[in-house]
């Protein structure tokens, strides 16, 4: 069993498990933090951005003013943003049999893997994961394609050049593996390879292993995966939550008794309490609106936004925000809001029971109905005419590098009465804001990350007791900025096996048994005998059939009756088949009982002689010796087959065949 680690990002994993002749990719996360090195893509021409000075090295030897721009002391690449892909050189991606997706955040690299690599396998995901994952991809493509950038900067990637650049550009690795966004055709083609699965559905892969998604409690349709055969069990834990938000609660007990547990997707904000952050979010929002300012919430178009809207639904009236317009702007805003209402099966119990009434499970339906929440595909069109201030705008992308959020940054950034509230934990807010500096707008950082924290995960691991844990190396040491916090790391016995990008781990597990099926006919012919109390044995002689990784044992076919022919006599003289049964014997032949048996079968003249290791029996009439010892019996006789076989069978009565 081997694990190939293709991504170093702990919450956007991409690992490949080789297990019993199957090659299984676990998640397909796309590391988007690379876009922070790029200049934002404005929706309308931004004089500020276009006037930024180009970068030239201090001694003037390197001139990249066309590709790199300087803003507030930092250098940005002026090009279409690029993403850091999972490693593609570590193993041949065309050999991957299946890809298991755990949640919609962890599938964004799918088109890069399934297209143009020779991939011919199947992708498994739940229905909400596929639906919302598709929305995320469509949104990304839309964000990129509506503001096409002619230039694609590559000179800065040159090794010699990169060395001379200021940080952080100088230190980024694998820049040649960075790629621009995919096209909608590639998205459609990639997603056409997805096969839908439900929680606890057992999917057989080539008869060798069974995979099964479990509810992970993190987002709509999010799952952990069990990969098991009859004798081995690997659990793959990715983005899970024990908090009560909208998704179905996490299924913990099914993770029990794993041989190996691969742990990824813990919270990125181990010190921030989601509930506290939600409170801070509301109070900052209300404060800004009361002061006549606007609130900008950069967010993904599904996930935490449902919880934010639900929280606001309860908060609006008590905070007197009944007349404040809330806008949700995204090319997929409408779809996201609509789809959230139809996945009752994947929701927590409370929301499920609403559907039985029948009422929509999320209260944002009512916010829309009462016109408190309005959604638009973009800032163009209807929005521009209906837009009223002060207001609250939810829009993407949380990196602030593309999407409608760029427009609002340019629009509101200059005024200190406005506030930007960061809720998504994926990007450092300081890095996100860097190309907008200097900025007058107020910034509030309340990241809401509902994924497991270290305290919860150690409790969980204590409960489910995996033999071995594999995790990203980041989890085996405290965060760099808080090196004294030994509670912000995994401490386990035996210690977890850490991995990083490009690691290849040999997972410590030896398979010892395999499942085989004994067909009824053979099973009925077996004769078990009790050898110890509670332990029975039966010798099995059978023909093995192995097909599609399933093994069955059948009775040995009886040889066809020999046709009576002239050759018959010869046939009798044929030597026996080379590979005759190799039955072992066990036990001992007790002297007294054996003598009695001999007597009964007409061997009356027996002389017994004691030796160092046992006895020698001399059958005088037959001139035959039988040497009886603790672990052996030796019959010495003249060539008298009937006699020999009789004696043999008498001895065998006392022995156990194996």
């Amino acid at each position, binding site marked *: 069993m081997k694990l190939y680690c293709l991504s170093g990002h702990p919450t956007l994993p991409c690992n490949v498990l080789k297990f019993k002749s199957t090659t299984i990719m676990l998640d397909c996360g796309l590391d988007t933090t690379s876009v922070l090195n790029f200049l934002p893509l404005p929706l309308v021409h931004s004089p500020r951005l276009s006037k930024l000075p180009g970068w030239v090295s201090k001694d003037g030897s390197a001139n990249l003013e066309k590709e790199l721009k300087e803003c507030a002391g930092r250098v940005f690449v002026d090009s279409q943003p690029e993403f850091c892909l999972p490693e593609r050189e570590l193993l041949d991606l065309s050999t991957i049999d299946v890809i298991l997706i755990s949640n919609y955040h962890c599938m964004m690299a799918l088109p890069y893997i399934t297209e143009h690599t020779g991939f011919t396998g199947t992708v498994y995901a739940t229905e909400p994961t596929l639906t919302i994952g598709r929305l995320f991809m469509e949104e990304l493509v839309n964000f990129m394609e509506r503001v096409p950038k002619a230039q694609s900067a590559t000179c800065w990637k040159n090794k010699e050049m990169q060395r001379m650049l200021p940080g952080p550009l100088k230190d980024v690795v694998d820049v040649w593996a960075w790629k621009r966004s995919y096209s909608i055709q590639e998205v459609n083609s990639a997603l056409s390879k997805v096969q839908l699965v439900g929680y606890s559905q057992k999917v057989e892969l080539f008869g060798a292993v069974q995979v099964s998604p479990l509810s992970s409690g993190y987002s709509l349709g999010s799952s952990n995966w069990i990969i098991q055969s009859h004798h081995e069990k690997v659990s793959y834990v990715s983005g899970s939550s024990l908090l009560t938000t909208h998704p179905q609660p996490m299924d913990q007990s099914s993770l029990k008794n794993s041989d190996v547990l691969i742990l990824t997707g813990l919270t990125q904000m181990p010190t921030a309490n989601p509930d506290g952050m939600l409170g801070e979010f509301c109070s900052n929002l209300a404060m800004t609106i009361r002061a006549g300012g606007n609130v900008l919430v950069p967010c993904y178009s599904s996930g935490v936004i449902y919880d934010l809207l639900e929280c606001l639904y309860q908060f609006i009236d008590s905070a007197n925000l009944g007349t404040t317009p809330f806008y949700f702007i995204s090319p997929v805003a409408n779809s996201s809001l609509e789809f959230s209402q139809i996945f009752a099966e994947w929701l927590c119990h409370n929301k499920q029971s609403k*559907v039985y009434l029948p009422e929509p499970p999320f209260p944002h339906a009512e916010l829309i109905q009462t016109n408190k929440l309005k959604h638009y595909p973009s800032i163009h069109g209807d929005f521009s005419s209906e837009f009223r201030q002060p207001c609250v705008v939810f829009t993407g992308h949380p990196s602030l590098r593309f999407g409608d959020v760029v427009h609002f940054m340019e629009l509101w950034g200059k005024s200190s009465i406005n506030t930007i509230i960061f809720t998504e934990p994926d990007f450092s807010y300081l890095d996100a804001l860097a190309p907008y500096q200097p900025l007058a707008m107020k910034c509030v950082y309340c990241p809401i990350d509902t994924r497991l924290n270290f305290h919860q995960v150690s409790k969980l691991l204590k409960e489910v007791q995996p033999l071995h844990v594999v995790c990203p190396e980041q989890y085996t040491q405290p965060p760099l900025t808080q090196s004294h916090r030994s509670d912000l790391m995994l401490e386990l016995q035996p210690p977890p096996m850490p991995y990083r990008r490009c690691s290849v781990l040999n997972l410590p597990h030896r398979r010892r048994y395999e499942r085989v099926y004994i067909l009824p006919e053979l099973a009925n012919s077996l004769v078990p005998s009790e050898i110890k109390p509670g332990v*029975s044995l039966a010798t099995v002689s059978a023909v093995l059939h192995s097909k599609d990784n399933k093994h069955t044992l059948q009775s*040995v076919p009886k040889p066809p009756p020999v046709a009576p022919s002239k050759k018959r006599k010869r046939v009798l003289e044929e030597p026996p088949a080379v590979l005759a049964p190799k039955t072992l014997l066990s036990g001992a032949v007790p002297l007294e009982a054996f003598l009695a048996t001999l007597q009964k079968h007409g061997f009356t003249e027996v002389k017994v002689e004691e030796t160092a290791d046992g006895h020698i029996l001399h059958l005088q009439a037959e001139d035959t010796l039988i040497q009886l010892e603790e672990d052996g019996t030796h019959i010495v006789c003249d060539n008298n087959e009937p006699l020999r076989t009789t004696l043999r069978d008498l001895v065998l009565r006392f022995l156990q065949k194996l």
Partner: protein
Amino acid sequence: MPEIKVTPLGAGQDVGRSCILVSIGGKNIMLDCGMHMGYNDDRRFPDFSYITQNGRLTEFLDCVIISHFHLDHCGALPFMSEMVGYDGPIYMTHPTKAICPILLEDFRKITVDKKGETNFFTSQMIKDCMKKVVPLNLHQTVQVDDELEIKAYYAGHVLGAAMVQIKVGSESVVYTGDYNMTPDRHLGAAWIDKCRPDVLISESTYATTIRDSKRCRERDFLKKVHESIERGGKVLIPVFALGRAQELCILLETFWERMNLKAPIYFSTGLTEKANHYYKLFITWTNQKIRKTFVQRNMFEFKHIKAFDRSYADNPGPMVVFATPGMLHAGQSLQIFKKWAGHEKNMVIMPGYCVQGTIGHKILNGQRKLELEGRSTLEVKLQVEYMSFSAHADAKGIMQLIRMAEPRNVLLVHGEAVKMEFLKGKIEQEFSIDCHMPANGETATVQTNPSVPVDISLNLLKREMALGGPLPDPKRPRTMHGTLIMKDNSLKLVSSEQALKDLGLNEHQLRFTCRVQLQDQSPEQETLSRVYTHLRSVLKGFSVQLLPDGTVMVESILIKVSSSPEDPDSKTLLLSWSYQDEDLGSFLSSLLKKGLPAALC
């Protein structure tokens, strides 16, 4: 020999009050718990006393599974769980769980409030019953207990309808409930994988029907409605509130839009709006097309279809009314029917199956004079049309499902005996498998022959596969040998050597030594080499060696030659072999006894 027993308490050679008991691997499961539309007395519910004479059913049943929300499949549920007594789990899909209590309440109201029956289940009982329901998701494997697992498949038919696979060890049963093998305007087609159940329990409502294409039927339906409207007639379409109603609404809605028709379409019960709401929230259970487009346009928001008020029935001019219930046995559809029956211009279209005893059944059989309660008779002058829109599989569809699942036995329920007989013949002929059709209270027993799962040591398996290849060669069957260790309910198959080691047993060597007398004048050494040459020529394919210490070795059998000093011509061959070489040893001793071939002297 293990067996599976199936006993219908209802729906055995009948349509109505579906309730089937299955006994498999020591588990007892009740499939559906329905009521009969054709009866108003005790026969309305399945006879639960079959299970036990005295009291509660909890200890006799491991679980109850409801396939869909139609009352002939769930109508007796509160009676069974609350009045007879059952506290175990009841499984149904989410939409069924949502809609079933509403229909039950409706049923209760009609029976108790309108007909004034007592000794019937109450609203509270329906609620208490629903608390015992565990929702099922499609394809999810639900572990009822350590041994019993169930899995739901999409069945079409109505929103949330499911087929279920019941599995204990390697034995399994699939129960189809009601299903539809052709996708329609709002639902998809039933689907199941090749799960090879021991028994497939299939409905057989349309066992003898092979329906023409759906498109033709729809065109026919629209044509008839249109003609009737054109000549100013009123069209009554009796339906059940959920199911076909939505299908036909979508059909008429699109037709009205396309033809720009103005005649009003009404839907009779207050349930409708609520019903359509369920369809919107459970849109994942509808067909591909509706699911894909629902964000832009929700098919269950009708523009032309409005709520009906009782007074509208007397309005002049043409109209189309969907009214419940579907078999004209009570309620609003019957009231409207009575009002409109006397005019030739009007028309009633029966879009579904009607059970015996209902007015729907009578008029479909051509009865033109109906006796009503209170001795009055009703003359039926309006046009009566039957158009099978009920979403059941037809004969072709049933055969198709059998082909999909590849069962070892088929068992038919939910159909009429005569029609079943016909289908049974067809199934047995085409698939060469047994087909059963027990009547109510009759038990069908199916022998199963499960394989025994065993853990084989990987060493043994790999050794065997390396030697023999994955598939046995029919000409040279390879026999594998091992020892099966049975201990604490575990079965392990290991090599004999490992079995000795694992169990801490000593090996007992059994050896044989045989003396064979031979007359040969040559010296010992020469005799030995003649024995060697002889054996070499006879035993092709065996390893025969002449060892330097004066021994011939055949495989692991040792042969030595000695001569007595008194008689040098008489030689004694000593053969020594272990029990494991018994066959070869025995063969050699008899071979050598015959002496050495003369030709070699």
